[in-house]
């Protein structure tokens, strides 16, 4: 039977196999993606990222159970763990924390190794999310280790991005460093039963206040002073990331977190940000594909021998890389 039709009919084996083909960027995978594309655009994509050991997998486990039991949604999970930069192998252990979800046909968990390919991870994840979307999953949760640019790229895929922190991982200087916290739509302090939760929350709060100044009250020479942001700068459509406390091993704070996610979806729809994010995401995907295709076309048009000759001249410092590009591209155009 046709793969795409099998996916639309809910065939789980066909789904699992297509995910492999899409992950490997095979021609069959791409062909199915083309056929399935009209059926995508329905699911809510939730990105979950944060430092190792903050309890992301347990949190995803709880969140997925919530969506199954309370909202009766079908949930797909893509759990990304790092590949070894030396051997290319990986141990993917996120399922260990998600055993509560096994035996439920409304849940599909797929582990994925990062494979360390340039920008390829975000592309593969996006494509896998599209397959789940077409297969009729209402919620797609993408879990990544928050350690770099690829996580930021993956966060761009998501409608809602959760950044998970835990007490005791860093001080307020960590919180004002650029990067992972900036991409958060919702900040989660997991393991909130541990000591240090107050200072972790305070650090995140002050970070948010720097990023989104509204009104601040502070003590100045013993007197309390209030400073408001001028009205013309206050944006009623601005989403200020809420800070949610959870203890995912006990299921605490999950209902409240799901509530915050629901409010974020409502905000995205009302403010028009949902459409804007879809646009950004699809545009980024299109650009990446164009880049790949141009590169492939270049490789087809320019003989490997010529390429290596020019490269050799660059290595010997006879031609600069900029001039080399001109020579190679103009050679192609002739």
């Amino acid at each position: 039977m046709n793969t795409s039709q099998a996916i639309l009919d809910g065939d789980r084996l066909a789904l699992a196999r297509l995910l492999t083909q899409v992950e490997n960027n095979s021609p069959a995978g791409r062909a199915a993606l083309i056929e399935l594309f009209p059926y995508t655009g329905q699911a809510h994509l939730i990105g979950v990222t944060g430092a190792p050991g903050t309890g992301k997998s347990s949190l995803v486990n709880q969140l997925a159970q919530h969506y199954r039991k309370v909202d009766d949604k079908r949930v797909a999970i893509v759990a990304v763990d790092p590949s070894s930069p030396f051997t290319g192998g990986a141990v993917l252990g996120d399922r260990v924390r998600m055993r509560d979800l096994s035996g439920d046909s409304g849940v599909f968990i797929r582990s994925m190794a990062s494979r360390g390919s340039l920008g390829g991870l975000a592309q593969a994840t996006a494509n896998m999310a599209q397959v789940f979307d077409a297969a009729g999953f209402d919620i797609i949760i993408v879990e990544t280790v928050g350690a770099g640019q690829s996580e930021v790229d993956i966060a761009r895929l998501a409608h809602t991005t959760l950044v998970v922190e835990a007490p005791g991982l860093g001080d307020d200087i960590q919180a004002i460093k650029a990067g992972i916290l900036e991409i958060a739509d919702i900040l989660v302090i997991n393991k909130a039963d541990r000591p240090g939760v107050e200072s972790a929350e305070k650090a995140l709060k002050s970070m948010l206040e720097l990023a989104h100044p509204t009104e601040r009250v502070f003590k100045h020479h013993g007197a309390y002073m209030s400073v408001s942001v001028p009205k013309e700068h206050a944006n009623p459509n601005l989403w200020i990331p809420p800070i949610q406390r959870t203890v995912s091993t006990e299921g605490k704070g999950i209902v409240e977190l799901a509530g915050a996610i629901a409010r974020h979806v409502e905000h995205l729809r009302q403010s028009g940000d949902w459409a804007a994010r879809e646009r950004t995401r699809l545009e980024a995907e299109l650009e990446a594909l164009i880049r790949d295709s141009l590169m492939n076309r270049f490789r087809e048009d320019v003989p490997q021998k010529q390429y290596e000759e020019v490269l050799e001249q660059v290595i010997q410092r006879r031609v600069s890389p900029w001039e080399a590009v001109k020579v190679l591209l103009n050679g192609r155009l002739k």
Partner: protein
Amino acid sequence: MTEKKIRVLVAKPGLDGHDRGAKVVARALRDAGMEVIYTGLRQTPEMIAEAALQEDVDVVGLSILSGAHMALTPRIMELLRANGQTHVKVFLGGIIPDEDMLRLKEMGVAGVFGPGASTEDIIRDVQTAMAG
């Protein structure tokens, strides 16, 4: 990105709680460049078959130290087949008596490893099974 990686599910069915061996094997297969999905302790045959399906693995490695291998292994193979995963190779490690080893191989188990088996042997047998 185009190279097909060998995907392996390492699982511990049944009730014994000793997962040291399973973890050593998982690590060794990782170092041989495979992608290893580790599921943790006390998995039912149904959980293992479901995980093997969702992860579209090529190989399932079972670690059983409880003596229940003659009950658990055939059940897992039956479920894999019922799910349409006829191509999946099943390997078994643990405390397995010699006469059971023969019977398990007759059932279609691709390889059985007892105490003292080297990780090199396990890696080689998995790679051979995938190539053949």
